[in-house]
């Protein structure tokens, strides 16, 4: 579906006419990211991050496929083949550093994309399905990243795999058999490494499939925008191409500058030195920490330290999974008719002075050793995190009095909407 004023694709020469008749790929592209997709004219730079996430997914697939040509998923040589890539393969070091930092940048842009969604309530009707698929993508990304980090078979790879699969051991009764089944043994070894490699190769293509559905679902209602007011007339939109291709091109340049600065000058900054030590099942690292993008959820896992009816470890596992799974329910928890945080005074305060500081604390504490004061800080932040999504958002959306919305996007941008004054817009205001 699209807006009635969307430009129509017209094949101009013999080849495009032939294609349009037999397999209309050019038409698909034109309607998806070309001039045939009308997009609100007022998108801020926060709307760049979906395209950027797509870019980093493709970068990960390209560098990953090249790395897989030289890597061997066998516990006796995995570490050595990784070093072989770094030392002997032409530009192998660039491929590996780009892949390792590419994962970090993929998460950076996806976190910004998700928090953009939180602030502007992008999850609300009619965009629930886009949001649900997005949460699925995030879960798949976490699984993929976790298994990818195991592949170099360094100390953090091994012990990270042991700790994370050990979480399943917290499930009552069936936990330990499940853990053994997942690992193919009692501890991470060749069987685990092999299946992680297999799945690490598979899942990115699954992510790509879900991304296609995510974008498909997006094109049905069209993009949201910073006012949260739905598109009413043609003057509210501009064609995706050239307006947003140009804007995304600039955003891509900026993120690539940061990305290449990391790859070429600080390639190991986001990694952990212990992962340059070969995996050793007999020597436990002093502090086992996952990659930075798991820190908030790792902090939640470790925040539950008291056996309240259930064992503390099980609370931690439940809390960690619930921390993400509850995002699925957001569209039905937030009943406010207004989307944008710009027009929701109370929601906005909780977002900037509650959720963002709590996430910052969880990020910091997840990377810190399991000592005081970090554990106590993460306990308070964890409590707030759950209260924010499950208690504060439902209540605030009921009691809050939103600020007045602009009549239309055009009015928000230009200060007035002449067509609205003339009564050409017949759709009711949101």
């Amino acid at each position, binding site marked *: 579906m699209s807006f009635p004023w969307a430009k129509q694709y017209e094949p101009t020469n013999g080849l495009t006419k032939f294609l349009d008749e037999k397999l209309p790929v050019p038409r698909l592209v034109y309607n998806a990211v070309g001039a045939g997709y009308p997009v609100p004219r007022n998108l801020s730079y926060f709307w760049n991050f979906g395209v950027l996430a797509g870019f980093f997914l493709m970068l990960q697939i390209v560098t990953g496929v090249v790395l897989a040509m030289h890597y061997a998923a066998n516990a006796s040589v995995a570490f050595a083949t990784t070093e072989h890539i770094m*030392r002997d393969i032409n530009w192998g070091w660039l491929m590996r550093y780009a892949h390792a930092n590419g994962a970090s940048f993929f998460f950076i842009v996806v976190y910004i994309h998700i928090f953009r969604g939180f602030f502007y309530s992008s999850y609300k009707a009619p965009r629930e399905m886009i949001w649900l698929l997005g949460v699925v993508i995030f879960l798949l990304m976490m699984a993929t990243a976790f298994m990818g980090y195991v592949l170099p078979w360094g100390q953090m790879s091994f012990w990270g795999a042991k700790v994370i699969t050990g979480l399943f051991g917290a499930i009552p009764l069936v936990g330990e058999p499940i853990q053994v089944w997942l690992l193919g043994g009692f501890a991470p070894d060749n069987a685990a490494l092999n299946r992680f490699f297999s799945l690490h190769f598979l899942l990115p293509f699954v992510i790509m499939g879900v991304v296609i559905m995510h974008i498909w679902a997006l094109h049905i209602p069209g993009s949201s925008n910073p006012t949260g007011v739905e598109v009413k007339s043609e003057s509210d939109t501009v064609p995706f191409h050239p307006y947003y291709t*140009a804007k995304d091109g600039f955003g891509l340049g900026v993120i690539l500058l940061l990305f290449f600065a990391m790859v*070429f000058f600080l390639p190991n900054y986001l990694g952990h030195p212990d992962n340059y030590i070969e995996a050793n099942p007999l020597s436990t690292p002093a502090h086992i920490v996952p990659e930075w993008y798991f820190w908030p959820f790792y902090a939640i896992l470790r925040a539950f330290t008291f056996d309240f009816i259930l064992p503390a470890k099980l609370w931690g596992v439940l809390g960690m999974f619930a921390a993400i799974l509850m995002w699925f329910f957001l569209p039905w*928890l937030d009943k406010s008719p207004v989307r944008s945080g710009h027009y929701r005074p109370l929601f906005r305060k909780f977002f900037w002075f509650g959720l963002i500081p709590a996430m910052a604390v969880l990020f910091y504490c997840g990377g810190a050793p399991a000592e*005081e004061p970090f554990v106590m800080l993460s*306990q308070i932040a964890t*409590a707030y995190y759950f*209260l924010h999504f499950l208690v504060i958002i*439902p209540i605030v959306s009921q009691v809050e009095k939103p600020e007045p919305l602009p009549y239309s996007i055009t009015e928000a941008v230009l200060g007035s909407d002449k067509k609205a004054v003339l009564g050409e817009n017949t759709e009711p205001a949101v």
Partner: protein
Amino acid sequence: MIRIIAILVGLGFAFVALISFVVGAYTAATEEAPDTHLPYEHPQDVNFSFDGPFGTWDYGQLQRGYKVYKEVCSACHSLKFVALRNLGELGYTEAQVKAEAATWTVPGIDPNTGEASTRPGEPTDYFPKPYPNNVAAAAANNNAIPPDLSLITKARADGTNYVASLLTGYRPPSEELLAEHPEAAPGPGLYHNVYFPNMNLAMAPPLTSNGQVTYDDGTEATIGQMATDVAAFLTWTAEPTLVKRKQTGWPVLIFVLFATILAWFSKTQIWAAVKPKKTKA
């Protein structure tokens, strides 16, 4: 309904997290947690030619460091990911690499009997290991296995400075330290070092006297100089492509910067038509 369930679940998780907090805070307030952190020192900041975004190798220093590794470290520490041919990257000529490789004894096979034997190294060989296996390494070193040094500067926080500092950080524990942390006293066969995280390590001070290694370029081989040189050499072994990486980075960044500036101009030009005109106040 869904919101009532959500509120109950949210209150539940928050409640358990806060109980954990209260119990933890109570424990912290009533029981004094033993301070298990030993006050080890962070590595000193040593200047190296390859530091910073424009860093380059100092081949003289790398060759000196190689000599320190060869004459001191290699007695106990392997360098298994580095090949003898890689010495060509340190500024040696092809003939020098061949001659240098031949000074190493590598495991081989007797061509007549097929028995295991040894032979002089070739550039295609990797650095030989000092011990046949970990059991032999542990037996010869007070039960501690000397780590492989190929990646040591990447496998430790602030690795290059750490190696240089550790090699010069041996000194007897101070009395104040022992008064506060009696466990910091070195046990049998251990040596006190202020830069090692648990302050005592099984490696005896390897660099003991000035002039222990005779440098070919006439540089005075003080302990500090030898430690710095070998740290530089081990930075090269950990990442032989370090300088190439930095040198590749600049053209890439300049190219992307140029492309980004062009993208900015094209973006502003495209949007000029639909941007609201700025009205003069």
